[in-house]
Structure formats: C-alpha cells, structure tokens
C-alpha cells in the first residue's frame, strides 16, 4: 500500500494548487541536425503560432501527416505565419538517417532530434504521431494524438482561431 501514498499525494496536489495540463515547453535539451544542443523551452515563432509534431522515420502515419501538411505549408505560412517544428524520436538505430530522409521527402520544417525520448516523456507523449499547437506566447493550447487523413484541415482551423485570438475549446 505504501506505493500508493505518493501517487495520491501528487493527485491531491494537482487538485488543490496546480493548473492541469502542460502549459509551456519544458527546459529539456534536444539536438538540431547540425549537432547543436538546443533548449526546447527556447523554441519560438516570434509571437506567431507554432506546431510541434513528434514523429519518427519508421512511423508511417507520422510521415503521412507531415506530407499532408507539407502540401499546404506554403499557404499556411503565408496566411497565418505558423511554423511547424518536427521532433524526431528516432533512436541511434535511425537518427543518422533523419537528415537524408527529410531531404528525400522535401520537407521545409526545422527538424530536431530527441534521441532518447527525453522531451517526449516530459510532454507525456505516449505514442506518435502526437501534435501540439502553441499560441504566440508559447502556451500549449491544444494537443492531439494519432493521425487520420483530413486532420490537417482541422488543425488549420485551430491555427486560424489562435491567430484571431479565440480560445480553443478542448
């Protein structure tokens, strides 16, 4: 029974003081494709909305999602100024292939490596694809797990709502 004590305590804390749900990106280190270490908390898009998408080279739905967005990305950027940041959770088995992979796909997104899933865990991402939408101040306003063709249209509606300053219904 002693194992449960801290669990209840944390749950109790959640109810009494803390705000539920992750608000901002945590200060976890990730790498860019040039080997530079970046603090995830420093990712921003100059006051415009930002999409964070967790993916991997072996994850077919992730690739479908990023390709679908890529088809419309130029229009999205022109209309809303949104930036998509793709975070690969490929481990050392595949992380060396990420750069050639995205070159082949022709993606224009900034891509970062989260090789041992540190950021993924800190953001409580279970399975990929997992997408976060951040407003211009870096607050996480929406998140979504999985990808179904057409989800990108829904995401774009939400991006527009963020731009218009509307509150996003969960």
């Amino acid at each position, binding site marked *: 029974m002693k194992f449960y004590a801290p669990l209840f305590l944390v749950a109790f804390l959640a109810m009494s003081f803390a*705000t539920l749900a992750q608000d901002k990106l945590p200060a976890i280190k990730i790498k860019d494709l040039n*080997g530079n270490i970046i603090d995830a908390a420093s990712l921003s898009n100059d006051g415009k909305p930002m999409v964070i998408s967790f993916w991997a080279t072996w994850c077919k739905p992730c690739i479908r999602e990023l390709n679908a967005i890529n088809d419309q990305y130029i229009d999205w950027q022109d209309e809303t100024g949104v930036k998509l940041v793709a975070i690969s959770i490929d481990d050392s088995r595949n992380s060396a292939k990420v750069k*050639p992979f995205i070159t082949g796909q022709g993606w224009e997104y900034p891509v970062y490596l989260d090789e041992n899933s540190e950021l993924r865990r800190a953001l409580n991402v279970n399975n990929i694809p997992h997408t976060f939408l951040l407003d211009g101040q870096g607050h996480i306003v929406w998140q979504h797990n999985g990808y179904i063709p*057409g989800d990108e249209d829904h995401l774009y509606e939400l991006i527009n709502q963020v731009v218009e300053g509307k509150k996003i219904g969960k």
Partner: protein
Amino acid sequence: MKKFFTGFNLLVFSFLWAQNNNDFGQISGNFQSDFQYYIQDTLIDPSGDANPDERILGTGFLNLTYTRGNFIAGVRYENYQNQRVGLPEGYDSEGITYRYARFIQSGFDVTAGNYYEQFGSGLVLRTYEERGLGIDNNLDGLRMIYQPSNGLTFKGIIGRQRNYFEKSEGLVRGFDAEWSLKPTLGWEGNTNFILGGSFVSKFESANDPELNIPENVGSGAIRVNLITGDFNIYGEYAYKSADPNAFNSYIYKPGNALYVAASYASNGLGTSLGFKRYDNFFFKSQRESDLQQLFINYLPSLTTLHTYALPALYSFNTQGNGEMGFQAEVSYNFERKTFFGGKYGTLITLSYANSYSLDKDYKLRPRYSPADTTIIDSVLRGSQGYSSSYFGRGPFTYFQDFHVEIKKKLSKNWKATATYYNFIYNNSTLIKGASDFDYVEAGSTPEIFYVNAGVLELLYKIKPRHSLRTEIQGLFTQQDRGNWALLLMEYSIAPSWFFAVQDAYNYGNPDEDLQIHYLSANVGYFFATTRLQIGYGRQQQGVFCVGGICRIVPASNGFTFGVTTNF
C-alpha cells in the same frame, strides 16, 4: 523507497510554499490501458496451452508530471494483472516503477530517482522504455549534468537498473564528456566537429566455485562527429574489459564495438552509409538475467525497421556476441514535371543491408583430470573464447535485406506507395538463438529462409475528411510458414473515427491445417487527446526482437479494448 518519497514530497511542498504568488506549477500526465478477452481457438492453439486461464487480462500505465519553472517531478504507476500473453513473465505485478525529481538551472541539471540516459549512440550506456516490447531498463539513482559553457557537457550517473518490479543486483556508474567545437571556438557557418568520450562500469559481487570472475567490469568509448551543411559522419569505438557472463558463455575475452554512420543530403538526394562491428559486446548489469532485461548498452542494428505486417515477420535483431555488416541507402525525389516525376513528383528509395558472423578462431580451455594431468575435455566456459581477424568475414550470413520503395501522388485524391523486399534470414541465429560455436561444434549449418515480399499501399481521399487506405501485401518463401497474402482496409473520418478490417491468409503453409485466415477488425474513436479502440482478432504468432534478443509471441484470439489519454 519510502524514505525517498518523504524527501520527494517535502521537496515538492517546499517549492510550493516558498513562493508567495499564484504560480503553483502544472500537473500533466498520460494514461494508457489495454484489456483483452481471450477466446480459445483450436485452429491456432489446439492444446489450449497459449490460452490464459484468467480469460481477461489487462495492463495500465499512469504518468504524472509536475512542472514548475525549472523543477520537474514525476511518477509512473504500472499494473499487469496478470502477465499478458506476449509479455515477459516478470510483468505480473503492479506498483510505482518510476519516480523522480529533477532540477535544471544555470548549467546544472540534477535528477534524483529514476532516469533514462544515453551516452553517444548508446554503445556503452542507454536506458530507455519500450513499453509494447516489455523493455524498461531505467536507472534508479542519481544523475548530474553540467554545462559550463555552450558546447561543453559533462554527465555523471550512478544507479541500479529496473528488473521488472525489482532492482538489478549490479551497480552501474558512468561518466560522459562531450565537446562541440563550433560554439566553443565561435565557428561561422554549418560546419561542426563534436568529440566525446564515456566510461561506464558495473559492479556485481561474484562467488563462483570454479572461475575467478571480475566483480568490476569497465567499458569506455570515444566518438567523433563531423558535420558540414550537407555531409555528416559519426564514428564511435567502444571497449569493454573481461566480462564473463551467461550470454557470452563465460568467456574472458575483452569486447569491442565500432559503429560508423555517414550521410550526404542535398537537393532531393539523400544517401546514407553505415558500418558496424560488434565483438563480444553484450553489456548487462547482471551476469545472469532474463533475456531482454538489464541491458546497460544499446547496439544500433543498422537495418531498416519494417512496419508493414508481412515484411515485419522477418525482422533482424543485433547480434551482440559478434557480427559485422553494413547498410547503404539512397533516396531521390524526382521533381514534379520531369519524366520520372510526373505531375506531382516521385520519391524512390533503394536500401541494402547485411550482417554476417565474425571470423572466429576458438581457443577452448582444457580441463584436467584431478588425479593426473590428462586432459578430459575442452570447454568455452572460462576460456579466452576466440580470436578474430578484424575485417575477416566469418562463415555465416545472419541477415540480408534489399528493398526498393516508390512513393507517388497519382492525382489530387490518390497517393500510392509500392515496396519490394528481398530477405535472407538466418532463422537458427536470429530466432532460435544458436551461436556460431553451436554450428562449429556440431559441424552443422544454420537454417536459412529466402523471402520475397511486396506491399502496395493506396490512399484515396473520398471527400473532405473521408478517406480509405488500403494495403495489399504478399510474402513468398519456400521455407518456414510458406506464402502469405494480406489485405487491409481502413476507412477514416477525420478527426474522430476509423474502421479497419484486415485479413492475413497463410495460404502457403506446408501444414494444410494451418492454411488459415487471420481476420481482425478494429474501431477507433478520438476525442480531444483521448483515443478509444475496440477490436476483435485472431493474432498470428509473432516475434518481438530487441537488443539482440527475440521473443516468440504466441498466437491468440479475442477481443481487445484500449484507451490512451493525455491531460
């Protein structure tokens, strides 16, 4: 454990009360639960041995993370009630398996409790969680990361690994340093040079009646990474002192490992080339343990991870006791409005990988009769094991994978991906776990499967938000379970629903009674961050491979129910 929590709670409270404002931080988390109702299926399991007595089994995971500025703390509760079909036997309990407190400030990053860490590419240290496979080798102890300046990182760790719901007998200690020259020297442009080195050792007490076993085993690795804008080369070499254990037949030969990966990517052309050579390099925190548990290190397999169901039947797993091999991959994106590109462009990927045995020359240990000095026999246990020429190719092929993938958007509403695969698969080594020495001793040859497979995937956008995805797969082999055909159809309505049916038909099974259909159907519903899935299916016998170890998952039949959510 209890003491830790008292301290942990105090820490959380002190942070909460130390601040006189309304920022009390955030709690976030996720939850996952899967249940299965098993039905006995006399076709796939005539004896009923694989059918669990419990009828209904479930697993659950709850993660809670508390974040307040630079302070993060978390716990994970897991339950396996009881061991689910397909998971290792030790997962049959419930409790807190992961809890930590972490503080990050001005270059310091300190974690107390459980943590996941990786040095370099993982050759000497990597702890990670792969829940679906039953892998979690997290360390429970302390981790300190210090970044004195941009470009310099030092890490120190100490801890004991998780072993199901217990701890490893062994203690793991490690240190890693990484120096990235570009920020330190203020280089302009995209060129960077990164140097790194690690040292990891384990301690486990020993009391063997016959052998004098080292209680401390040390390993070290050095790595270099050169990056220019388009070109990247990474190399890591690791060495390990004598580490006789159950997985290397208790030989005293020191181990070594080399991993090199290079890539060049520019203007729609992506290429990569990798080389690996692993020699006696299983590194575990206990000399004896369950197969998949307690790995300290991780050896990259340098093969493609296939995810279509039929090609994934013949997946490779790294041979930590000795293997070498390479992988080459080229992909090119033919631009739209060219001959090969057509209207929307075409992406073609070619990939080749192989793996074969080391050229080993065995050096057995003679055992003498106690009465006189005559030799009774010669054994591997307690010997130097073998010597091997560095680039010499051994007699056994473990694996070969050649595949070509063509990906194309056909029209506004149609996308297609076609893939052809050719595998050479050493079943004795990869699945049955036979060692090279077993063949040498018995004078036998391994069982090899020759496999061809093809997959066509079509995605059709019916109307906005409605789409149909189809997979047509075929797998052809004269060996093993023979030929297979598979059809998958998945209808989805964004953003909430999907309906999928799949039939895998093993029409070529040499045993006519096993020429059966493996039918399954799934419905999924998404709302906000929650996903519900319910399904029915007959699951074919499968293989889970991790870290050089494969586990056979028995066939099963039944209803499944799963929930995942984030908050």
